[in-house]
């Protein structure tokens, strides 16, 4: 399943539609980095509002996406984790360590704008 990625100024917004298979996640990882390079984006928001499960593979892949994008000098923020999903994740010890998170798209954009405005 292709994850739609939109450009918003210097930022990219990837909106996950529903449950992603492992292949989808691997594909997303490659696609995001390529897009960041092509668009010379400063920041990426990955919106996982529609994901009702987050397993350890998904969590690891998202962490890898963030690390790879950071190597390109850009920031990644994950938004829209649902309360039930967050609860299940911490019980299983899946933490998304080292990745910035925010409540929703609005917060995510706010965060990125503040980060890059202050350094401008």
């Amino acid at each position, binding site marked *: 399943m292709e994850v739609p990625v939109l450009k918003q100024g210097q930022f990219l917004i990837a909106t996950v539609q529903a449950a992603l298979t492992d292949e989808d996640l691997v594909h997303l990882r490659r696609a995001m980095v390529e897009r960041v390079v092509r668009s010379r984006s400063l920041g990426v928001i990955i919106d996982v509002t529609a994901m009702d499960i987050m397993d350890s593979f998904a969590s690891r892949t998202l962490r890898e996406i963030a690390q790879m994008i950071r190597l390109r000098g850009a920031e990644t923020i994950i*938004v829209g*984790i*649902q*309360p039930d999903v*967050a*609860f299940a*994740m*911490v*019980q299983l010890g899946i*933490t*998304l360590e080292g990745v910035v*998170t*925010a*409540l*929703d798209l609005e*917060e995510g954009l706010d965060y990125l704008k503040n980060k890059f405005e202050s350094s401008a």
Partner: protein
Amino acid sequence: MAKEMAGMERSATWQETLIHDASLEGTAVLLRELVAHLRQNRTQLREEWAKRITEAKLLTAMSKEEIFAEATAVYDQYVEALQTGTFEALQAYARSLSERIIPRGVETHEVVGIVLLLRDVLARSLFAKYQADFTKLDRILDAYEPAANRIANTVAVGFVQERERVIRQQQEAIRELSTPVLQVRERLLILPIIGVIDPQRARQLTEQLLRGIRTNRAKVVVIDITGVAAMDATVANHLVQTVEASRLLGATVIVTGLSPEIAQTLVTIGVDLGKMNTVGDLQGGIEQAERLLGYKVVPAGVAS
């Protein structure tokens, strides 16, 4: 020879069946007689019972009129159960009676007491009626006693079950009330926890908080545990999980009011204190939260 033996066995079985049927029929006939007697003497037996209830100082929470009304209903249900041999109607009545009297403060021993008194009153009236014929009295009691005991049991159990249901309901309400998630500023929530936290309450707390973070779009949460005396390792882990889950929703958690015992527990179980943002007391926690949110609190009338 074998055939004869078999024949004898068969007739023995027939005989047993005949006796069994006869006694069953006998029981049914006796019960009908019993029920008729109880119905005919309803007024005075009911009065006798009400008198005994008052003498035993039971149902003091209810007025005389109420006792009379309920006594009438119980008496009729009692006789009905004896007649039909089915107990669903009685169970339903016991539940509805319990719903009515539990809020009035009627206790279990009172309910059991009055049902046993009724059993005694009815038994005595049977003694009086059949005292001339001991054999008949014996058989009548054989029919009466199991049924009467089952009735007493049904009513008592119904009452106790209703009490337990009410207690569970109240416990649930207390649990809900005792973990309020309060918004004190834009994007700032406070969760004051008071009392004992068991794993179930901890879980409920976390769910309420996460929902509150999403609903109020909170960026900072202050969890105050001044009112919590102690927590074991399990609950401490729940607290850490709550902090982590809140972060996944983009909220920073500040924990305030840790007692020395709890501080000890957290250090002992090896909680990664780097993950936990703690401040001494609630006031300090709110002040830090305001700073994180970019508020500056200045006394009114002072030039900024």
